[in-house]
């Protein structure tokens, strides 16, 4: 339970950085921290105390494996989520570069004030 609360604190820190800072790169950093926290939460749900990783080895006992393995389904979902997060980060970095080239600053309140 304590582990879940610490994870929610990490999510809340990322959310605070996303909405309260004015530098665009800080907003991107907040988004990245939110992604880490959500992926971690999904893997934390599927953990079994004293469990085995879901990979079979030659000569392993199948019934022992079935009773003691951790959940492989959240791991499959998180695997695609991590790589999609990288694609999203590339898109956000492209936005940041173009905004700097057009307005000359990274500050969001300046960009909101200038027109065109």
């Amino acid at each position, binding site marked *: 339970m304590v582990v879940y609360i610490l994870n929610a604190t990490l999510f809340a820190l990322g959310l605070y950085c996303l909405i309260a800072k004015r530098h665009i790169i800080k907003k991107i950093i907040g988004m990245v921290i939110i992604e880490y926290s959500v992926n971690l939460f999904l893997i934390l749900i599927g953990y079994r105390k004293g469990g085995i990783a879901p*990979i079979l080895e*030659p000569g392993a006992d199948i019934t022992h494996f079935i009773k003691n393995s951790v959940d492989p389904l959240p791991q499959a979902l998180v*695997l695609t989520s*991590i*790589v999609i997060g*990288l694609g999203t980060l*590339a898109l956000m970095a*492209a936005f940041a570069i173009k905004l700097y*080239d*057009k307005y000359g600053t990274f500050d969001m309140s300046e960009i909101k004030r200038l027109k065109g």
Partner: protein
Amino acid sequence: MKKENIEKIVHDNNLGMSIIVKTIARMMIAPVLLFGFYIMIFGHLTPGGGFAGGVILAIAYTLMFMAFSKKMALAKFSGFWASMWDNLGMLAFIVIGFIGLNVGFFMFNFIAVGEPFKLVSAGIIPLENIAIGIKVGAALYAIFIGLSIYERILIQEED
């Protein structure tokens, strides 16, 4: 580009990073590529799989891009070929799915499931791993090219 032109760019002191970085990069690119292929191909036996292998391949080419200059990396693996490998990987994945459609449902495992723990086993899973690995690797290398080749032009306001 011809081989002697590439050699000229590699040994040019004005392009790329210093000579220490170039020597180490020259030694390290081949083992990193080999490691990427290993993780991609053995995806059904050891942890890893298509996504991790593909990103390692992209990292190897990014190392070449950063240590030697942009001209050399684009001569070896240009933007056109990065886009083409991306499309071919995606096409291979979909074609495997459609072949399964003819036999059973979409993405049906039509190759026989062999003996476990061998390299050639598990039906279409190694083929799909390779297709996804090539696709993800080429796409991430292409985005790194895209962040570097377009000139950073500062737009001046009309006075």
